[in-house]
């Protein structure tokens, strides 16, 4: 019985971890679905968004190091702080600005190029954004507090203690992440099904040429989809940054999104969620039962092996569109 309860706790925590992975994977899906581009920079976008949010919240002077080194000044902060909600709104605007800049400076010049060229452009973009974030906001680890609670959920622990005799541990931040992910997916669904821009986005995703022939602006759709992906990156950055501070290793969370995408499919929003949950639960259970027998630290290994197995039997992933090439 005790082992069963432990395993149940591992499963619940695995589901919660899966939601966190799915938050990152969603941004990849949006851009891939609309433009066929695998955005290597999605993890760095989450980092850049989180850095910008903390910087705005704390009233930090952007590029302070560079300005001080050039002009011999001692700038650090503006001396004011912003409420979390205002800082989040401003950061979202910065991400829209970034989307416009990416479209104007990069994507516009690569129309009709093969996907691998666009993919390589996103690699360049990732390095550029990482450097820009460093120069703008500095390399220090920053505390992010937007009011999301952290730590064990007392209520859940008490209830499960009463029911089962074992108090389950779930981090309140993970519960919030699950709720936010659910709202995000619902909002994305409503947007794509019931708004004009959403329908245009789906049309472009289905067939670029046909969408263009009915007057849909491809450039506008690219700005729109990169803006939404930027917002999703901001949400992912907030949740991961709240966990252990905003720091440059945040960009590595993209590593956890890859197997989720391979499993759920690169073109499906529900696929990102389901893929995240399967990876989260699978890796935690594997570590729980098999980890101790093979020396542990199996989570990343397991996630990629599971994704590989899925690729062999279902290359398009669980929910992805079947790839049919007519000759």
């Amino acid at each position, binding site marked *: 019985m005790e082992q069963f309860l*432990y395993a149940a706790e591992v499963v619940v925590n695995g589901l919660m971890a899966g939601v966190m992975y799915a938050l990152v994977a969603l941004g990849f899906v949006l851009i891939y679905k609309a433009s066929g581009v695998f955005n290597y920079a999605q993890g760095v976008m989450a980092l850049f968004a989180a850095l910008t949010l903390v910087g705005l919240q704390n009233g930090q002077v952007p590029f302070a190091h560079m300005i001080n*080194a050039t002009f011999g000044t001692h700038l650090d902060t503006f001396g004011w702080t912003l409420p979390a909600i205002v800082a989040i709104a401003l950061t979202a605007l910065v991400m829209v600005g970034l989307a416009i800049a990416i479209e104007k400076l990069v994507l516009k010049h690569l129309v009709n190029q093969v996907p691998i060229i666009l993919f390589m452009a996103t690699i360049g973009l990732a390095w550029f954004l990482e450097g820009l974030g460093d120069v703008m906001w500095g*390399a220090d680890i920053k505390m992010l507090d937007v009011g999301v609670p952290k*730590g064990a959920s007392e209520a859940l622990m008490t209830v499960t203690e009463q029911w089962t005799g074992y108090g389950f541990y779930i981090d309140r931040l993970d519960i919030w992440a699950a709720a936010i992910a659910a709202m995000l997916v619902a909002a994305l669904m409503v947007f794509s099904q019931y708004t004009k821009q959403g329908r245009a986005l789906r049309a472009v995703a289905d067939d670029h040429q046909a969408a263009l022939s009915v007057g849909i602006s491809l450039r506008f759709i690219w700005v729109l989809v990169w803006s939404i992906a930027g917002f999703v990156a901001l949400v992912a950055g907030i949740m991961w940054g709240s966990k252990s501070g905003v*720091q440059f*290793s*945040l960009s590595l969370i993209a*590593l956890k999104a890859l197997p989720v995408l391979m499993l759920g499919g690169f073109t499906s929003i529900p696929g990102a969620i389901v893929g995240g949950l399967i990876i989260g639960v699978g890796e935690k259970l594997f570590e729980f039962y098999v*980890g101790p027998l093979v020396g542990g630290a199996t989570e990343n290994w397991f996630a990629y092996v599971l994704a590989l197995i899925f690729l062999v039997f279902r290359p398009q992933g669980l929910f992805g569109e079947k790839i049919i090439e007519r000759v």
Partner: protein
Amino acid sequence: MTLRFASLVAAAILAAAPALADLVVPNLSYRTGPYGANGTQYADGFNDYFTLLNERDGGIGGQKVQVPECETAYNTEKGVECYESTKGTGALVYNPLSTGITYQLIPKVSVDKIPLYTPGYGRTSAKNGKVFEWVFNAPANYWDGASVIVKHLLDLNGGSLDGKKIALLYHNSAYGKEPIRTLQELGKKHGFTLTELPVDAAAGQEQKSQWLQIRREKPDYVIMWGWGVMNQAAIQEAANVRYPMDQFIGIWWAGSEVDVKPAGAAANGYKSATFHGVGTEYPIYADLNKFVVEPGKASQGGEHVGSVLYSRGMYAALVIAEAIRKAQELSGTPTVNAAQVRDGFEALEITPERLTELGLPDFGPEITMTCENHGGSGMARIQQWDAAAGKWTLISEFTEPDQEVLQPLIDADSEAFAKEAGITLRC
């Protein structure tokens, strides 16, 4: 036009290269990437100490010190590239701040005859100077750290750890695995059981599995061998599962301000080992302010002055500077070469009196290196985080590690290396 371009290039090269008589100590640093927050502070302390010597004393023995910096991003391949690209500039010693890079450089420095100084990291058994002629790791190594932590736990438990459970949460890399053998041996001697909990090096932010296991098994103590985000995530998870912070002890690479601050007040009471003092309450800081910070010559504007990692970088520079000074004394010339600096390391003695003269009284343990002993005494102490005050407090005196357990392990490991590499024992 071509001539003008050629002269511009020549001028640029001459400006970038150290002057012929300068002492060159490359700084293989990392200010970017996942470990940049840690590497930046260490590199600043390292640079600033040499700037202080140049500005206040005119260098070492009248020779200015050049500290060309090369970015490794904590990446082993880039670290080796940095070594290869700077060794031709007359480099006297390397301190790459990475165990992975150290392992790659050990065979190279032996061929190039340039000393490698790895305080508190790198290959532990390099302490054996009979085998590792060109490597020095005083004042303490990983196994010293593990032993001093266990001694602290012994002190807390009336001298006995019999029947206690200790978990080792470690970075799943060459660095993280270093203390396992030592802790196993210490477990046999003191009767505690050791549970090993590796954390994937590439996914340090997600540690749910490890902390759920800690929550279930309730070890009496958790020892952490982490670096970078792994530390912050672990301290936050410990707070989340309500593991008592004063029973959670990290090695010195898991004991800086950047590790505890993200968890806020929840990190209060967390402990770590250290082999040097903390804070700015040492006389040297008056000189640092006067000659380096206030004139605007501090690395990165001096914003990290006094932090744990800044202090460690500064301490590493101090030991190197003293080795160079010793080399000048032994060779009778201020313009020493790398081989002479190696001799300086091997004859180095930093007494408490000398540390006081240098403005850092009681900052580190006494260092005495010999042909056989390249690792010093291995003494270390324990510090504890005070979240309200936002600073580390030293809670133990310098403690000697258990050499009875460590020395046979060092001998066995280094002699196996000597056999494999065909090295004839010196001394």
